[in-house]
């Protein structure tokens, strides 16, 4: 469990990225921090591995104040995946994945063996092991990034808009892959995005952030959709524009689900969903559906 207790971060130029934030991030669940730019979501994420230190307040991991931990050591025990993968361009894929293992003194042979296993885990062909990151597509690089984040089998995985820079088809693939991984591994995932649909898809718990790191609403996707806390949340998730006000229209193969703008969002079927987070119905909104 990660806990923020009245945490404030003020940068030297005077901007308050986060203002007395209190937040509990449960273990083995995916918590998504969603907000537009300037909402302090990345700052919050980086306070968990001490990339950023709070100006005041306490961040605890499993009851221990992390201010007392050595940053370099702390970071080696927490997985981190970022946008544009952040891979080291001068290291082969296999060595990129094994980076943290090397840093923690795991023998080279064992580290590489583990890296190959991780390539299987994230669905990367082992043939890519000896390539350099620049020889991979954006989606493949992102998989390498995830494998690297998982290398030391950390309890906590921090993901900073990891799928923000890939095209929609690859993004959707990577999102499904992450859901699968999370079912298998059960990490404490903290995921930052500005895409509310991505948040609804991946999050067990979602924190919608306003400017200054203020939490507008914290809850499950169902709670947020069915009972938005205020106008800001309504507007953010799209209920105010009617974008999520779905209705049924008869179609040739069953009932079509039509969103508030009159576009078809999907087809209503009778089976209940068999995987993924709990949902009120089969429809998932316009951009995450389509299957």
């Amino acid at each position, binding site marked *: 469990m990660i806990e923020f207790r009245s945490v404030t971060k003020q940068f030297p130029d005077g901007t308050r990225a986060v203002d007395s934030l209190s937040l509990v991030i449960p273990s083995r669940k995916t918590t998504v921090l969603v907000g537009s730019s300037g909402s302090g979501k990345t700052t919050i994420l980086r306070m968990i*591995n001490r*990339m950023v230190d709070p100006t005041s307040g306490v961040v605890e991991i499993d009851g221990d104040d992390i201010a007392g931990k050595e940053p*370099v*050591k*702390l*970071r*080696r025990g927490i997985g*981190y995946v*970022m*946008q*544009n*993968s*952040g*891979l*080291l*361009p*001068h*290291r082969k894929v296999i060595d990129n994945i094994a*980076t*943290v293992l090397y*840093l*923690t003194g795991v023998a080279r042979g064992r580290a590489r063996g583990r890296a190959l296993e991780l390539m299987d885990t994230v669905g990367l*062909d082992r*043939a*890519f092991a000896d*390539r*350099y990151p*620049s*020889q*991979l*597509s*954006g989606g*493949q*690089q992102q998989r390498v990034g995830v494998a*690297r984040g998982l290398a030391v089998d950390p309890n906590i995985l*921090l993901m900073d808009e990891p799928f923000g*820079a890939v095209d929609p088809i690859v993004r959707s693939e990577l999102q499904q892959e992450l859901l699968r991984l999370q079912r298998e591994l059960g990490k404490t995932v903290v995921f930052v995005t500005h895409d509310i649909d991505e948040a609804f898809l991946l999050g067990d718990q979602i924190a919608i952030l306003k400017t200054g790191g203020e939490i507008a609403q914290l809850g499950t996707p169902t709670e947020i959709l069915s009972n938005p806390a205020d106008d800001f949340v309504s507007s953010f998730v799209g209920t105010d524009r009617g974008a999520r006000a779905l209705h049924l229209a008869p179609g040739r193969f069953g009932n079509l689900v039509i969103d508030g703008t009159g576009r078809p969002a999907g087809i209503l079927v009778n089976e209940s969903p068999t995987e993924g987070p709990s949902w009120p119905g089969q429809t998932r909104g316009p951009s995450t559906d389509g299957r």
Partner: protein
Amino acid sequence: MSWLLANLDMVLSLTLDHIWLSVVPIVLGFLLAVPIGAIANRYHLVRGTLVTASGILYAVPSLALFVLLPSIIGTQILDPLNVIIALTLYAVALMVRTTADALADVEPDVIQSAKAMGYSTWGRLVRVELPLSGPVLLAGMRVVAVSTVSLVSVGALIGVNSLGYLFIDGFQRNFPLEILVGIIGTVVIALVFDGLLVLMGRFLLPWSRITRTNGRLIVVQDDPVVINP
């Protein structure tokens, strides 16, 4: 030609002197400039001072420096050390700015990610930032190598032997062939050094070549894969 054959021993010995007088400043200059450049890059307060000072240093004429050094550091006037120290200073002057700029150009994303992986500040500099500066450092060293090889000749004017001696001797005796041998020898040394640096780059920085030669579109297992721009 017969002059060259008759004086082959002297030419070879001057060539060895020339190589020795160039290699030491090139290597020393690199070893000194990289830490200074790294300091300049890390501490913004001293960056301006260090980079400007090294720039001004390069503006001091080499002959003046050769002549002044003995009175500054107390060496003998004919000591080859004067040339070595002066040329090391020039190498440092060129490489400090190059190193500082190269380090400053390392992708911020990569630095952030290295930090997040748990690299210490020192580890990050040595294992990530310097290797990634490699291609720029190499380009800088190629300039340093050629410029040093050429400047060594000037030392002949203060009596430190190198292929430069052939210029002076050939000029005084009005004997163009000797001058020509000196020039060709100097150019060959410069080309060999440059070639060695390029080879070292291929060996030490294999990743930079792949990125460059493959451009944006490469073939991976028969599927065209578009590289992320």
